[in-house]
């Protein structure tokens, strides 16, 4: 959804680092395979010019694979049969290119097969840009098609769109009412019955929420179903989540009595989204130099969701970009952590705006082709350690955000000068000066590379970006002083 606009952004003009390339890989296996292919002997006729990198990779067949990458986006094309995207050949080619050892000489014209695809791509991008300029909200531009599912074909009149939106709101309201009944029954019989009833009892409710086109409610129901098996203390957690679901139901059922911003938050929470095109057309664009603070990919088995967090240099505002893909493919949005992006951002309307989408990017002119720099040891720009706050301030930031959006599980913050402390009953991020500490979210144990954080700290203070929430702090990035992701490969391995 949000990815389409980003795919046509300007590139950062210099030769990438290997980390940036590896971050594009859809999974660990592709990363490895790409690494193996990044050898001189494997490639012939390779070259780079402007935003294009191309080469022929000798595979097991008689005919070499034609691989071409458009750094603008980036976009990939390869004649191999792999369904991974980008495939290992594209990754290998880029890795060879990043190494800067002459395996992919700069200059020269792309061969015909590469030029053809690059040309097609440029043409498509040009059309899209033209469309965005005069199209305004674009097709289906009303509040209709709120699910944001493409909507390209829906060139219907606004009246029909309004009717559709009304129908959907009614269905969601019916779903919310049903969920309210379900919760009331549960409280009447006692939470202890939820333990006995097990998972199945919730399945039907979740299915009803899907029927009601309320994915936000469905996700909450699935979470409720999992709590009774989540270990000691589950009744309190179940009551908390039931209460927040109840709060959401009530909010949606009385939407017109809520302040406008809170109503927007409520709508988003039940699963109504605003189409990107509408967002860019109606919301105020905030231009800033946005520092990419971190990235986390997650999957529910059907969809991979990539989260990228930004912070504005001037506005100091946090922003969250989402990008989606089907399993086996990499979400298109690939901003490397540490990058500083001069761009317009449009926030989704909310009482506490966080999620945003990228509009126009400034800086290097589109399509301009600065000559590839020699392999830069300093990595990408903005590799300095960002400013952060202390433990107390981080909790206060979450508390304040919660005041506006009671359903927030966490709020992104940069913690400065904290020391990781391992322990038998969980990790802490300790602030040596104040003697206070934030516990690390216990759910991080299997998915975050806390030992990497420990190794980097060496027992001394570090800066850590992550989400501060009621379960504790979830580390995402640290700096050594270049950004280092703490989202372990273990997490990605677990999703396979």
């Amino acid at each position: 959804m949000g990815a389409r606009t980003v795919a046509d952004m300007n590139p950062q003009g210099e030769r990438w680092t290997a980390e940036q390339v590896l971050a594009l890989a859809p999974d660990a296996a592709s990363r490895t395979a790409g690494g193996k292919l990044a050898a001189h002997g494997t490639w012939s006729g390779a070259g780079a010019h402007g935003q294009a990198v191309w080469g022929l990779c000798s595979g097991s067949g008689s005919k070499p694979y034609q691989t071409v990458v458009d750094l603008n986006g980036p976009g990939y094309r390869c004649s191999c049969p792999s369904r991974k995207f980008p495939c290992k050949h594209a990754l290998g080619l880029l890795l060879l290119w990043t190494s800067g050892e002459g395996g992919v000489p700069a200059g020269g014209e792309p061969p015909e097969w590469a030029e053809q695809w690059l040309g097609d791509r440029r043409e498509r991008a040009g059309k899209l840009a033209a469309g965005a300029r005069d199209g305004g909200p674009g097709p289906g531009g009303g509040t209709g098609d709120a699910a944001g599912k493409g909507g390209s074909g829906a060139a219907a009149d606004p009246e029909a769109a309004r009717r559709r939106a009304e129908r959907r709101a009614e269905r969601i309201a019916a779903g919310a009412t049903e969920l309210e009944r379900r919760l009331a029954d549960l409280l009447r019989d006692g939470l202890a019955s939820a333990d006995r009833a097990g998972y199945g009892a919730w399945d039907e409710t979740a299915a009803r929420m899907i029927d009601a086109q309320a994915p936000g409610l469905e996700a909450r129901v699935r979470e409720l179903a999992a709590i009774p098996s989540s270990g000691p203390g589950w009744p309190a957690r179940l009551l908390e989540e039931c209460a927040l679901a109840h709060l959401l139901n009530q909010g949606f059922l009385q939407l017109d009595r809520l302040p406008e911003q809170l109503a927007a938050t409520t709508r988003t929470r039940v699963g109504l989204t605003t189409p990107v095109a509408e967002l860019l057309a109606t919301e105020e664009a905030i231009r800033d130099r946005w520092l990419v603070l971190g990235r986390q990919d997650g999957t529910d088995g059907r969809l991979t969701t990539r989260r990228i967090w930004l912070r504005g240099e001037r506005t100091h505002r946090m922003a969250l970009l989402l990008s989606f893909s089907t399993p086996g493919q990499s979400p298109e949005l690939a901003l490397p952590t540490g990058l500083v992006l001069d761009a317009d951002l449009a926030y989704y309307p909310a009482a506490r705006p966080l999620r945003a989408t990228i509009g126009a990017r400034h800086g290097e002119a589109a399509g301009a082709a600065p000559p590839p720099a020699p392999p830069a040891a300093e990595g990408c720009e903005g590799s300095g350690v960002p400013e952060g706050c202390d433990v107390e301030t981080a909790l206060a930031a979450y508390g304040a955000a919660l005041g506006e959006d009671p359903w927030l599980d966490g709020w992104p913050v940069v913690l400065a000068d904290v020391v990781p402390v391992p322990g038998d009953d969980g990790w802490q991020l300790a602030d040596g000066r104040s003697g206070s500490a934030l516990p690390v979210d216990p759910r991080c144990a299997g998915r975050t590379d806390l030992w990497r954080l420990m190794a980097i700290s060496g027992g001394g203070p570090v800066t850590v970006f992550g989400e501060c929430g009621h379960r504790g702090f979830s580390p995402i990035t640290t700096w050594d002083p270049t950004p280092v992701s703490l989202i372990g490969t273990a997490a990605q391995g677990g999703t396979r």
Partner: protein
Amino acid sequence: MTSTTPVASATSSASSAPTTAKATTAHTAASAPSASATSSVSSASWDDLVAAALLGTERRTPPVAPRPGQDTPSALLDAAALSTVRRRAGLRPAPARPGPDRAPEDPRPALPMAAHSRLALLLADRSAPGRGGSRSAPDLAELLPQWLALANHHGYRVPDALLPALLDAARARTDLRAEALTLGGPRALWLALLNPDWKFALRGAAGRASASLPEPPEATAPPDEEQRLWEEGLFAERVSLLAAARHRDPAAGLALLGGTWSTERAEDRLMFLDSLRDDLSPSDEPFLEQALSDRSRNVRATAAELLSALPGSALAARMAERTRSCVSLTTDGPTAEGPTDDGATDGGRTTDGLVSDERTAAVRTPRIAVRPPDECDSGMQRDGIVPKPPSGRGERSWWLGQLVEATPLDRWTEWFGGRGPAVIVALPVADGWQADLHAALCRAAVRQRSAEWCRALLGTPAVAPVTAGDAAPAAWRDPAKLLAALPSRERAEWVAEFIASHGLSDAFRLLGVCAVPWAEPLGRAVVDALDIARDAGSYPWSFSGIMGLAERCLDPAQADRLEALTAIPDEREGAAPGAGGYWAEAFQRLVGTLRLREAMRAELDPT
């Protein structure tokens, strides 16, 4: 997470609580615009709400007052929502636990950027499933050992961010441990102390690896601290400490051990004793001599083994004396060919040293006569001779073998009239004792690291037998060990000549002990032999072991020569079907790996 402390003491005293309440009331108020309801809701304790919810509102009336028209469960949920958001918004930090000490400084330079990325890739490959996706792509995990060795050669330290992955790799593969821990340096040990998964790093190998650093962490510990750690530390810490102390000052390390020796458990004594091996010196002899009377048989055996590796030790002298009584040089008896010896100079032969005159020796063809010991007395047993042979071996030959193995090799030259090792090895041995004697000499040569004797026992590669059966000379039971004692240059030449004469089929273990990268003429010999094997029409996987070895060990400079072999040749008559294509693929992979290794080397080169 329990209900009481999601983050810490969940008081609702935080300043942000009122704003939260406002937001929450915005919802509850939507259904209940009554202030009194809100206030009664907020007074109920969270635990009371949970208790009511758990049992059900039918069984227990919750401490909430429903609004008119509202049912009790909804009122309970209203109250719970308010309480939940309020507690979350009012979370306070927890008291900080004491953190670990700071990691010691590591002054070594950081890796160049490209090498840093390379290491990340090599370590990632280790954990990747389904290896060998492409037959023509290199196996990165196999390159890790030499990458580590090369990085250590340049004296780099590992990037902190990759330290956990490096330790995981070393945990899984013992062959990586020494180099990985050297690269990891003091911070690896610091980290390993915090995570039980990595406790392997605290064992002896770690001490040795870190001791080779410019500033080992142990060296900074003051003597008092060292003594305290030695007396109170965990076993792993103590082994590491001892190894480091020994490396720094063998006598001081020994003193440390001697101080507590009598109170150590037998298995610990064995481990500590074994750790003396690397920095063994003649001054250790009194201690080892005393350990020969240890209560534990294994400790005694290890002490004897260490003593026999000290050629000047009293034990070595006792062993030599015993061996001397078992062997002698004679010239009587039948000779294989040539004229009969005149026997006139029998008495003077061993004393005047004239036998170095080869002609005389050849004419007389003296033989080694062997009379193995009749018994294994208590003195022999105290010196580490194991009295009971393994089944199937005669006990006298078993004792003899142990005596010869522990006898300093230079005594043989002394006893046999100044003859050199080569001459002694060539001497016939009477009564079928040759196999036993030579096998024992091989073990002695390996244990005493004598290049001269290893060379003599190996003989000439061209005439070396290809099979290592019982009939083969004793050296051929384990030629690789003998080769390992030779200088690397000579090793490469010997193996190259062997391959030129016998081909690759028996060369695998020999190649395994050659220094990497293979020096010329060895690399050339291997490439030629592979070329010949291809021309002979066999399939490349018959040589997959050698191919794998070649990928790791060939000098990358051979890549250009090999490039010519990557073309698919025309299928010839008599060749295995499709073999040409498979060979081309195998050579492609070989060339690819060599180029990758060259790139790895260049990345690590600081200039």
